[in-house]
């Protein structure tokens, strides 16, 4: 594969995220990096993917101009449906969304995500923005992909608050709380990519980004990291992926560092 010698970590993550989208899938597109990941996927290998945005937008084409966020007018222009948030959420709840992407401030080894608060709900240390649609995406999409900065204070044994449910405390938990489908299928971090063990529902390191070692990952993860027997290296972003991505983020606002 052709690659550019120079790329940023964010660009690598966006490229990796874009590869999680199969052609023809309905994708619930979140803010920031996932927005770019969808645009890259749609442009390069999933031309029939449909993007659903919680603002009440459905698109089967990419935005006509670079956008910083999903509410920028080029993302409304010639869309396939401008509707209510509840229309998009209904598609999600009904099970018509294949995959979604969410980020977080804290994640644990079962893929539970916290974007609400650190400390506890009665003694808050740091208040974060909250769920937005993330809780809904984690509960209701057929699968969701987590995109995170990989730091020890974020990768903790148990999150302080479950904003977006992963596999709770392990196998069978989702069913037991009433969730009827879904769960995280991958975690794309600044250091590597994780999948989830089908038996234990634990995060398993499957891929390391270039220059990253297992020891470095363990150093930044506050539980004993499980390593896949088929650990590989994350493919570099291709030249085509980088040029596409840079077309959508021309000033490197999201991926410039």
């Amino acid at each position, binding site marked *: 594969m052709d690659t550019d010698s120079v790329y940023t970590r964010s660009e690598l993550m966006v490229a990796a995220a874009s590869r999680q989208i199969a052609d023809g899938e309905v994708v619930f597109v979140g803010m920031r990096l996932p927005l770019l990941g969808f645009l890259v996927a749609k442009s390069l290998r999933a031309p029939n993917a449909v993007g659903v945005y919680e603002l009440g937008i459905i698109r089967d084409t990419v935005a006509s101009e670079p956008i*910083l966020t999903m509410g920028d007018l080029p993302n409304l222009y010639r869309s396939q449906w401008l509707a209510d948030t509840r229309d998009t959420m209904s598609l999600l709840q009904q099970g018509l969304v294949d995959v979604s992407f969410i980020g977080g401030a804290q994640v644990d080894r079962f893929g539970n995500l916290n974007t609400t608060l650190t400390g506890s709900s009665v003694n808050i240390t740091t*208040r974060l923005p*909250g769920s937005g649609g993330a*809780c809904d995406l984690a*509960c209701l999409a057929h699968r969701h992909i987590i995109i995170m900065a990989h730091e020890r204070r974020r990768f903790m044994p148990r999150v302080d*608050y*479950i904003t977006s449910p992963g596999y709770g405390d392990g196998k069978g938990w989702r069913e037991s709380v009433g*969730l009827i489908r879904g769960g995280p299928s991958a975690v794309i971090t600044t250091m590597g990519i994780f999948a989830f063990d089908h038996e234990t529902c634990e995060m398993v390191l499957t891929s390391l980004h270039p220059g990253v070692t297992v020891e470095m990952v363990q150093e930044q993860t506050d539980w004993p990291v499980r390593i896949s027997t088929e650990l590989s290296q994350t493919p570099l972003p291709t030249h085509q992926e980088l040029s596409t991505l840079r077309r959508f983020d021309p000033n490197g606002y999201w991926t410039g560092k």
Partner: protein
Amino acid sequence: MTTSKLMDMTDAISRWVVDGCSVAIGANLETAIPFAAGHEIMRQEKRRLTLIGPISDILFDQIIGAGCVQRVQAAWVGNVITGVGYNFRRAVEQGQINVEDHSNLTISMALQAGAMGVSFLPSRTALGSDLFATNPGLKFVTCPFTSQKHAAIAAIVPDVAIVHVQRSDLFGNAHAWGNMGITREACLSSRNVILTAEEIVSTEMITRDPNRILTPGFKVSAVVHAPWGAHPSPMPGYYNRDHAVFLDYQTQSRTPELFASWMNQWVRSISSIHQYAETLGDAYLSRLSITHHDYSEPVDYGY
């Protein structure tokens, strides 16, 4: 015909947003955020408000920073471009406001329940999450047909919804387009609706396209002419997002002192949306204007 509901922003906010009331605002998530109305709330120093919204724009952070807010019922409070809402964070961490955490789906259902006149609606979201710990409006309910567990979301009936629309007549019959967010349910559930509008137009222009009407005119209590009233958020058909304002706000809100300075300049020193637009100036604003127009095909409502 009813009498005109047109009034200026000062009167509308003074009359319909009273201390202690609950206000649904910014219901479109990222577009058409009623900044002009929010700034008037700040100027009038309203107190003990409950703010209700989905993903909320920096307008929530600003109103919180001005000390107007006691409670937030929302899915997300921050800056859609840069993330953190510093006033919000400070106010929560210092115990000044209470937050009832919603997701976009649960806040939509809460207002939808209010709009439909039922006391709750069921959903399959939020199960297993800690939203139940910080939101007394979330409980559980068992489906009488399937015995499946659902989240039960309590109805929210705001005292007033404030919505920025493209065009309204004098009576609150208004056209709105673009992504709708949770605006329709906010209008239908709220006891009163304040519409701020880019343009005031004839009833005839509005009723020539009744499918595009936002909400029944009889639900609307006040109509305010507020061109540029959603700046710096994008207004479909009128102007693009002013990204710089969102980027700069990250710094301008980082400390209470910086925010006080920002508020002095952009809220307290300004008397109206008209002066606000003059202050920004035509040359500045013209850079945000729609340049690539794209008009809808007319449809026929004749007989």
